[in-house]
């Protein structure tokens, strides 16, 4: 049982988002018939629990600073974009740019995520149970990307301080990345991530850690010059 139910079939997007904003902390909500609707549950700072019952569209949970959101289906582009705190759990797949620019909180995709997952991550955590598309982790500045499955090409291109863990195969690494040995701290982090996400198909011993090689951090005036 939930405290409140809204349906996208009988309410407009704005009516739903305004109603959600007014709910007290601790309220549980179910949103039915999302039918791929964009911009559901965005910009909330109250600590409510929202369940979206079906496939949803773009920017689900974007800009949120508190709520815990579960999507019983798949989502479109940019789930949890610029998330500040709270969680977004997607039971299906996510399209492009999942968790883009998130400052905090956690986006969990139980299926696959598409291209540019975790692009420009700024401190949040992205966990994907399946695989991710090409250019994931592009220019990620801070935070953690945990991929249970495989990663397509150019993973972590131009990475800054964010850390990427991959349980499966990496098609190719992006520019200025390097593979590092897992430390005990990494293993502890991974153990906690697996416990939180339930991604127990991932074996910590098989995880590859990818960080910035930091060769692009400073401009080298003498590089490629001949005297």
């Amino acid at each position, binding site marked *: 049982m939930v405290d409140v139910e809204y349906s996208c079939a009988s309410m407009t997007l704005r009516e739903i988002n305004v109603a959600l904003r007014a709910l007290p902390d601790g309220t549980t909500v179910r949103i039915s018939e999302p*039918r791929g609707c964009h911009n559901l549950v965005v910009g909330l700072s109250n600590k409510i629990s929202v369940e979206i019952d079906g496939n949803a569209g773009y920017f689900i949970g974007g800009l949120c600073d508190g709520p815990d959101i579960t999507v019983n289906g798949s989502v479109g582009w940019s789930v949890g974009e610029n998330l500040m705190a709270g969680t977004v759990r997607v039971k299906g797949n996510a399209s492009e740019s999942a968790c883009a620019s998130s400052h905090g909180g956690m986006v969990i995709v139980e299926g696959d995520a598409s291209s540019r997952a975790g692009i420009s991550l700024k401190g949040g955590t992205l966990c994907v149970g399946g695989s991710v598309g*090409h250019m994931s982790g592009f220019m990620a500045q801070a935070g953690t990307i945990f991929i249970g499955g495989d990663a*397509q090409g150019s993973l972590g291109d131009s990475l800054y301080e964010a850390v990427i863990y991959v349980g499966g195969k990496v098609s190719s690494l992006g520019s200025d990345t390097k593979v590092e040995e897992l430390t005990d701290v990494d293993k502890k982090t991974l153990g906690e991530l697996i416990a939180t996400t339930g991604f127990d198909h991932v074996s910590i011993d098989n995880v590859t850690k990818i960080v910035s090689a930091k060769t692009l951090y400073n401009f080298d005036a003498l590089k490629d010059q001949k005297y």
Partner: protein
Amino acid sequence: MCGIVGLKLKNPALENQLGALTVPILDCLASRGEDSTGIAIYTHDIGKSAHKYSLYNPEMPFDWEQYVGSLDGVFGDGSTLTVQARQALVVSEADPVQILSAIRHGDPTVRLFGYGNAIDVFKEVGPASVVCERYGIANRAGYMAIGHTRMATESAVTTEHSHPFAVNADVCLVHNGSFSNYASVRRDLVDHGIHFDTDNDSEVCARFIGRELAEGATMADALKTVLKTFDGFYSLVVASEDSMAVVRDSFACKPMVVAETDDYVAVASEYHALAELPGIEDARVFEPNPEEVLSW
């Protein structure tokens, strides 16, 4: 932004509903562009040896009888003329080469939007709701529909610049994105004697694919050559009489979602637009990978 749609039916029982299934998709994708709307309907409603010609004139009313008469009987005896709003559909058994030449050298205010044994092309400036209503799209039957809602970036907002671009018999293309090297490709095609109706970037790709097909390439091979030749951003849906194919550029930053059931294959820019299709809950929904050519 633009919205692109492809709906190919597997179940013949749905053919009477093709238009009714496609209109809500276009209507939803109007949020990605309202400059113009276009749709190609594929239907086997004429004899195998005949061709349909989708003609357009911006003037309304326009004397289409007189126009057909002005082409010196090139359409032949037994040809039929059906007029709706600014468009006319002529069905003829006569030689298409002579007809295409006569149309090109006839009244310059008349445009040919497409021709073939199966394809009817409807397009005009305006949002999906208006254009679909004007051309009665919801009541049209067929086995495949290719549609487009345009937000213009590369060339003017006119009906001629609208998608789909149907350049060969029963071949059409819709494009979301923008080509950056289209002027070079266009020059090369012009040097090989290919005629253009507009300065639109997507028309260049349509005519490029048209040339590849005319030279014997399969649709899949033609799209692989597009990947090698064209620079820029693109998600494309391309159709021929019996197939529908899609491709996205290597960055894949223009969206595309495929939903497949036992009854149909549907492609759209956003899942949102497909959410009203019957059986969508159980469809296999996925995104084509970058540089992956898929055809059905």
